[in-house]
């Protein structure tokens, strides 16, 4: 707006100049004026009609006008000066030859014009206030220009006798002037005389000033102001003039008068009634021309050249030299933070799905239009499609280079011979190297050669990125303690053995096996020193030593308390020994039982005969207590009793398909239960209640029904070598020890796989044993320790056994990497016996 205003000002100025010019070349313009007069004939009637319509806009304009004023007061100086320059140059360009006289006046002249301009503006304002006439407001658009024609007119009046006026307002005023005063020239002249300041100035200028002043003074103005004039309709006067005298309405003629005037008065078509004064005003030719131009939507000033050459005050061309020397502000080259925030907000909104791109919107629309499908199996919680956005997997980061990567690493980083060898040794498995390169030393960076492995490492990096897991591994943020099952504290599980109480010393070689008398007064042990010893538990006294002629691999006290027999596996022979301790009656009864040979009516097959021979012990051995000898064809590894004490089973691992045998004492008969061997049999076991037989091969345990003679179950241990097994007295749980450091608890009702795998020992587990009464089991291992565990089996089938290791007993001494070889429980007390390679048996209570 301001600029526009300025422009208009500028054009005013130009017009003014032009008017000045026109003064000079007035003669040339005369012809044009005549044309204008012709045009005006049609336009005047229009003008009357339009005047009332334009009232609204006029008022707005007025208000705008005040704005202009303010604006001009601020910046007018600058712009004005510019415009002056421009105008000046234009002028000079246009009329170099002719305006020599003006140029003579120089800058003084221009300055005066400036001040003149300002003055005129002020005058304008007053004018607007003064002019209360509606008619006048018609021409308000050209209010500004009114000044120009005024000056022009004043010039013109001097030179062309007052016929030239560019604006209608001026024209009106001039009409008034003409009416009130007889001659303008005289008026002007009067003014010149009045003004003492102007005496020295150029006469044209003086007139200009005088004109503007006088026009105000001599104007018969209606002082009622801007009121609806119909208020005066009923009065003879129409308002008051400056002297407070009534302005009498001119007499109003009737139709005939009008008609007559129309006929008579040649100026009738150009006479207009001033609504404020009621006077008839005859428009000048200039007025008419102006009206004409406005009607035809042309620039009111005929002198105005619309096609003046364009002066690029603000050029778009890049200057070769910068105009200003101020360095660019920082923000001109920094990315805007507010923009960045805005962008990031938008990105976030996009990520969150609050905002959608056009494509997405388009796609959604398309989907909404088409048929809808639902994923039946998709859970409500699945958010996989948003996972990439919400939880992106960042690429694995590489380590930052350290000192070793330097081209000139500190000497401690450079490999010495040993490190170098080690590095080279790991050639086949480079991932085990601490550094994937060998630190090299160069004296300067410029000597560093191209890195030979660059391509390969880039490739590996790409592979890493390509193969890196896309799904993020959710790290459990759970306390490790929380995951450990809540186990009762060992204190609550008492009683169990906690301390070593007695050491049974006497053997001279490793004690392979130990077995407890069912009453719990004695134990029997078998050793590599080829003896079997019977000990009194309470005192640690060796009651009896029975020498055999081979290494004793296994001893087993007959579990039937009514019998007093120990089965001893010594080499190839199974000795049935009467220990002669305990009840004398029983000893005697047992002797009698073993002495009489039953009638053997069944013929034994050749297969058994070659494997086993029964015989009564020799006299020498009889004295030692040996009653029966069952000679096997291979060394016996293990011997185990059936609960009733009539059957005893032996294992000969080398016996191929005859490696497991069952002997019946009462009939002195042997059976080979399996015609084929399913593997290297390690140990066998009778079920305590049911007629079942457990056979452990190296890898698996098979359970056979002895009555139906069929395989019931095969337990998969998933271990390499079974060493021993023990069955819970209730018969539903089996404990298997293995040489690969494990113990496996099988719940026979549950599954063929271990219910629990106990990795308590650091070395091969030699044997395990269940307590007959307490919920305890113990394991013997080559790591010198006996570990006592609480193994509670509940009667409730829904409740799984509770297994809690409670005590590690480690008092045995190491000997030739053997530790504890066997473990046995006291039948009644929570005491455990262990036999070790250090030739001792130890009692823990």
């Amino acid at each position, binding site marked *: 707006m301001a600029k526009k205003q300025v422009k208009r000002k500028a054009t005013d100025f130009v017009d003014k100049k032009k008017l000045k010019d026109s003064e000079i070349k007035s003669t040339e313009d005369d012809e044009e004026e005549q044309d204008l007069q012709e045009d005006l004939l049609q336009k005047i009637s229009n003008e009357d009609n339009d005047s009332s319509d334009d009232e609204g806009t006029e008022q707005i304009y007025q208000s705008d006008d005040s704005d202009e004023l303010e604006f001009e007061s601020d910046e007018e100086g600058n712009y004005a000066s510019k415009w002056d320059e421009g105008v000046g140059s234009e002028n000079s360009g246009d009329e170099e030859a002719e305006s020599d006289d003006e140029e003579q006046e120089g800058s003084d002249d221009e300055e005066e014009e400036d001040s003149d301009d300002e003055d005129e503006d002020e005058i304008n304002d007053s004018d607007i206030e003064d002019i209360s006439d509606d008619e006048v407001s018609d021409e308000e658009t050209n209010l500004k220009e009114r000044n120009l024609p005024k000056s022009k007119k004043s010039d013109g009046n001097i030179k062309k006798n007052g016929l030239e006026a560019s604006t209608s307002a001026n024209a009106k005023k001039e009409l008034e002037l003409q009416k009130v005063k007889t001659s303008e020239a005289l008026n002007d002249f009067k003014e010149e005389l009045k003004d003492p300041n102007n005496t020295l100035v150029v006469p044209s200028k003086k007139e200009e000033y005088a004109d503007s002043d006088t026009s105000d003074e001599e104007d018969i103005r209606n002082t009622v102001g801007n009121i609806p004039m119909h208020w005066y309709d009923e009065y003879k006067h129409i308002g008051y003039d400056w002297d407070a005298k009534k302005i009498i309405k001119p007499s109003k003629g009737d139709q005939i008068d009008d008609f007559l005037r129309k006929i008579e008065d040649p100026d009738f078509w150009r006479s207009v009634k001033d609504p404020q004064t009621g006077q008839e005003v005859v428009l000048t030719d200039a007025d008419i021309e102006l009206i004409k131009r406005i009607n035809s939507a042309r620039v009111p000033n005929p002198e105005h050249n619309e096609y003046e050459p364009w002066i690029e005050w603000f050029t778009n061309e890049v200057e070769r030299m910068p105009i200003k020397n101020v360095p660019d502000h920082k923000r001109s080259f920094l990315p805007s933070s507010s923009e960045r925030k805005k962008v990031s907000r938008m990105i976030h909104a996009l990520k969150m799905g609050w905002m959608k791109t056009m494509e997405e919107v388009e796609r959604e629309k398309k989907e909404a239009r088409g048929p809808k499908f639902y994923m039946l199996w998709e859970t409500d919680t699945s958010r996989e499609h948003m996972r990439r956005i919400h939880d992106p997997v960042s690429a694995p980061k590489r380590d930052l280079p350290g000192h070793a990567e330097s081209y000139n690493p500190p000497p401690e980083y450079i490999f010495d011979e040993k490190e170098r060898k080690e590095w080279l040794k790991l050639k086949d498995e480079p991932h085990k190297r601490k550094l994937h390169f060998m630190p090299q030393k160069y004296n300067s960076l410029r000597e560093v050669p191209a890195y030979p492995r660059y391509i390969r490492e880039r490739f590996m990096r790409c592979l890493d990125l390509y193969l890196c897991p896309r799904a993020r591994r959710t790290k459990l943020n759970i306390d490790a303690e929380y995951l450990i099952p809540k186990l009762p504290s060992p204190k609550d599980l008492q009683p169990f053995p906690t301390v070593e109480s007695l050491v049974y010393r006497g053997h001279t070689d490793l004690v392979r096996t130990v077995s407890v008398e069912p009453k719990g007064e004695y134990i029997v042990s078998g050793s590599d020193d080829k003896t079997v010893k019977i000990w009194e538990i309470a005192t640690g006294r060796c009651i009896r030593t029975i020498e055999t002629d081979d290494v004793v691999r296994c001893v087993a006290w007959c579990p039937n308390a009514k019998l007093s027999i120990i089965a001893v596996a010594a080499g190839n022979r199974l000795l049935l020994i009467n220990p002669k301790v305990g009840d004398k009656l029983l000893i005697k009864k047992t002797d009698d039982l073993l002495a009489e040979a039953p009638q053997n009516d069944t013929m034994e097959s050749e297969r058994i005969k070659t494997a086993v021979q029964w015989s009564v012990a020799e006299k020498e051995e009889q004295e030692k207590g040996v009653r029966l000898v069952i000679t096997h064809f291979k060394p016996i590894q293990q011997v185990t009793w059936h609960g009733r004490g009539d059957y005893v089973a032996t294992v000969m691992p080398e016996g191929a398909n005859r490696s497991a045998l069952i002997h019946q004492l009462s009939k002195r008969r042997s059976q080979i239960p399996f015609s084929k061997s399913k593997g290297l049999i390690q140990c066998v076991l009778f079920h305590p209640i049911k007629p079942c037989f457990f056979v452990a091969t190296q890898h698996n345990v098979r359970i056979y029904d002895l009555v139906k003679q069929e395989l019931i179950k095969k337990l998969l241990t998933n271990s390499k070598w079974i060493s021993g097994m023990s069955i819970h007295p209730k018969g539903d749980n089996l404990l298997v020890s293995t040489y690969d450091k494990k113990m496996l608890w099988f719940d026979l009702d549950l599954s063929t796989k271990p219910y629990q795998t106990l990795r308590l020992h650091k070395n091969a587990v030699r044997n395990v044993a269940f307590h007959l009464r307490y919920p305890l089991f113990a394991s013997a291992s080559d790591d010198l320790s006996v570990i006592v565990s609480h193994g509670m089996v509940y009667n409730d089938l829904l409740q799984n056994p509770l297994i809690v290791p409670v005590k590690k007993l480690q008092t045995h001494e190491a000997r030739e990497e053997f530790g504890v070889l066997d473990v046995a429980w006291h039948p009644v*007390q929570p005491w455990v016996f262990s036999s070790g390679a250090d030739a001792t048996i130890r009692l823990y209570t």
Partner: protein
Amino acid sequence: MEVENGEGQVQVRLKTKQEHFAIPDVPYTVEGSVTTAELNTFVNTLLEQAALNNSEYKAPIEFDFIVFDEYLRGRLCDHIREKEFSFEDTIDIEYVERFPAPEPQDCLLHDDWVSAVKACDKWILTGCYDNTINIWTVKGKHVLTIPGHTQPLKAVAWISVDDQRGKFVSCSQDQTAMLWEWLVGTNSVECVSICKGHERGIDCVDVSPNKTKLATGSWDTMLKIWSAEINEGCEGTFKRQKESGATRVPDITLQGHRECISSVQWMDAETVLTGSWDHTLKIWDLHLEGIKSEISSNKSIFDASYSKLNRLIITASADKNLRLYDPRTNQGNLVRNTYFGHSQWVQTVMWSSTEEYLFISGSYDNQNKLWDYRSPKAPLYDLLGHGDKVLDIDWSNPKYIVSGGADNTVRVFKSRKVMVPEPTDDTK
């Protein structure tokens, strides 16, 4: 509090039951950190002052101080704090003449483990793992070796002994108990009768106070009561008369224990106390032929001893501790006290027959210990000497503490305590 830290002072009142050591009954103020030795000096000083008048006092006497029914072993303030008594009250301290340390007197060598010892007067009866019974004098003189059993001896007991003849019983793993008559003069011994009836080894035996009955406990879980009469006279029934001589059968067989009976003792003429591996003590009434009361513990009991003086039971069980039971209470905490000190199983324990507060114990850690039951933290004396497990200990003769062990020896310790001239209980 500074007193608790041993810096302050406490008021004490010193008392004694031994009147000849009495001192004026006035409260004294002593340092909280005072120990037995300092108190001892203090009391002796007081006595010395008093002795100036009557000149009875001769030499410094060793005293022990009992505060709140327990021996003072450390600092007084620690003791009070432990007992949770107020530091501000006047504290009664009882002082008693310290029991003199027993002296090792003799070592009786055997051929095998000595599993049973019993002293009476000047005779010591030992049972040995080489199936023999030996008679020694307290002076260490071997009197007699008696073979007879076929398996190791487990228990022996004197029935009576006088100058002419002695009667004793021996029990063995061969399931028999043998009654012997020993003529001192000719030094000849005769097996009067063999008690047969147990189905497994007999582990313990005791003679009734009136010397007429025997009680034996065995591995067959039975308690059997036998007649101890040797010269079968008027009391014996016709049937018993007929059978006696060679063998005799039990008068009463009492079944109740589930495990081996490891100790038996007559409490009075009709009551027998038994301890068993099944973790219980049982008191049997022979009139009713049943169990009068039962005390359960959580360990197998190896030995139990009942004191007629204080009517308390001390037990040795399958751990390192001795426990004191009061059979008269049957509710609350039955264990009155636990005595810590041994490092291995305690195999045998016995009350003093004359001293109310004293008992001795023998353990597998090769030590005998003399205890005052008011001092649970530490024994009065350790009786060293054995080179192997102690299997049996006896203090029937108040002058001698006799113990037998797996080092094939019997150790005799002389108790220096001047006997109060009063008939001992075991002579009843």
